[in-house]
């Protein structure tokens, strides 16, 4: 799955490519692990990212730690705080992304304040410079994202919006229309974190979302086992995002890169083979 350097290709295209080749390879959905940049420290997080790429990631979601992550549950919140204590900064995390982007498309997940504080244009330039393909801002609803969308569009970066189970039809249309790269469907009403079971309404949510957008739909939040990943694919997801489970392993294991590799292979094989 490792790909050659694709520096000149705009991020939106690279992301589209990643989703379509997952399909072309006969897999059920694209696999997108989440990496907390700088956790447990920058060097180890870089190794974890490369381990993701080797173990079957189609794309990597690279989280930038933030002091007040309102969309995150305890595992990612704690990892972000630990990363900050270990000295992670946005430039440091983007360097982790740079090495990773040589192998897989990188979508940066970053809270609004880190963008606002730097200034949108400067931030977007730094993303492009690091080789990132897309951007997810979990606290930037469509009402607030007009300028960010323009800045990303200008640079070929995909600004990926989120849709939630609580999102009404009219908003979905607006979100779907301005989705670039893919649309991030939040599987449940809540923050990130592992759950015992997938939300029962997931298939309905996915069907609703898909009606309103031309881009692939990836599901995240609450997917912590290969079975849940397979079920999300069966429910209609074009991509599956795995976060807290991997971050937890990175925090617990003596050899984080080896631990996440093994886990990710499990997710990859659950998504191997076409939907029956």
């Amino acid at each position, binding site marked *: 799955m490792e790909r050659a350097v694709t520096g000149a290709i705009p991020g939106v295209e690279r992301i589209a490519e990643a989703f379509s080749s997952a399909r072309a390879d006969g897999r059920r959905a694209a696999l997108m692990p989440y990496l907390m940049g700088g956790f447990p420290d920058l060097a180890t997080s870089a190794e974890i990212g490369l381990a993701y790429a080797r173990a079957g990631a189609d794309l990597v979601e690279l989280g930038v730690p*933030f*002091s007040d992550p309102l*969309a995150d549950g305890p595992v990612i919140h704690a990892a972000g705080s630990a990363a900050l204590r270990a000295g992670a900064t946005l430039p440091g995390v983007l360097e982790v992304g740079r090495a990773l982007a040589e192998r897989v498309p990188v979508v940066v997940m970053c809270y609004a*304040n880190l963008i606002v504080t730097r200034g949108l244009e400067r931030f977007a330039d730094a993303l492009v410079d690091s080789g990132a393909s897309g951007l997810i801002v979990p606290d930037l609803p469509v009402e607030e994202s007009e300028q960010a969308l323009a800045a990303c569009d200008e640079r070929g970066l995909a600004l990926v919006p*989120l849709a939630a189970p*609580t999102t009404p039809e009219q908003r979905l249309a607006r979100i779907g229309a301005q989705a670039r790269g893919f649309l991030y469907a*939040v599987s449940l009403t809540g923050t990130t974190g592992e759950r015992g079971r997938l939300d029962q309404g997931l298939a309905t949510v996915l069907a609703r979302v898909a009606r309103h957008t031309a881009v692939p739909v990836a599901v995240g939040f609450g997917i912590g086992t290969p079975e849940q990943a397979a079920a999300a694919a069966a429910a209609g997801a074009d991509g599956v995002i795995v976060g807290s489970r991997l971050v937890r392993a990175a925090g617990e294991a003596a050899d984080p890169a080896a631990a996440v590799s093994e886990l990710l292979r499990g997710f990859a094989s659950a998504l191997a083979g076409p939907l029956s």
Partner: protein
Amino acid sequence: MTAVEHRFGPYGGQYVPETLMPGLAELEAAWLAVRDDRGFKDELDALLRDYVGRPSPLYLAARLSKDLGHPVYLKREDLNHTGAHKINNALGQALLAKRIGKRRIIAETGAGQHGVAAATACALLDLECVVYMGTEDMRRQKPNVERMGLLGAHVEPVEAGVRTLKEAVSAAIRDWVTNVESTHYIIGSCVGPAPYPALVRDLQRVIGDEARAQILERTGRLPDRLIACVGGGSNAIGMFVPFLDDHDVQLIGVEAGGEGLDSGRHGAPLTAAGLPGVLHGAFSAVIQDEDGQILEAHSISAGLDYPGSGPEHAWLRDLGRARYVAVSDREALDAFARVARLEGIIPALESAHALAWALSNPAGELDLICLSGRGDKDLAEALAELERS
């Protein structure tokens, strides 16, 4: 019908996870519907009168005035039921929650005053109540933790960060992200995503409306200076708003200077005037590092121990309409002790910041200070600090 403001100049907005957006829209629509509704207004006014004890008195603090050399009036929010201005907002929002059919209430609290107010409103209106509170604040505001328990609320300890107000707000917002369909979040100050800053201001402006009428009746004139402490800024905005067009009235917001603005250990984002940022859903004055990480605030007063500020205050500051200043822990403690002796009033440590600034900056002919709450909750903490010095 005027809209509910989302922005105050460049400040405000709705920087929250998508999951909450429908909840915010529902809240805004509900507020628009009841804001000018006779039935709602009558119900709230009756409660404010018979249950809270409004109007709160305007008191000419004679000995304080003598010290300062000019008349000083205190708006006695400390005499409200539950002991602070927070009840004005909590009752209004709890009534609103009932209207939109939400029977579970969450709130955050720093000093515990807002938590107690929310717990009280929920007891009165038969609503379930969960209050998030940092464990450091649970320690320093213990009486309020006990009051909340007695009132039937569940206090949820928050262990993140330095275990104070910022983390309590974050924890409450995360709860709301999970339970938005069944739950109303009663935020305790004019902060957070729209419509909260406008909603809380509208519910707190009763302070200023009353004070304006009272001071005109008593003195036949408007004050030279209005002085109020600013944590998130709800007692101050409630006091200021009815006077905004009275251009001769100076508006002064007093923030927590903590150990000094230079020390970095303070709660004065408006005064320090660093780069603004996004915290808890709004773009406003914040305390942050160059990378954009929000820093921990510090104040002896749990209610002012917050690195953010209401967006309308940031705008009033930029417009030059209001001025923001900071008072140190030490000065606030001294004013706490001094006003107790001078007036027989033990102020909340928050309110003591407003008093301290007035005491050390005598000017003009007539001051009106918002005494936002009483200091019973602060006795242990303040006495220990006073003894140490």
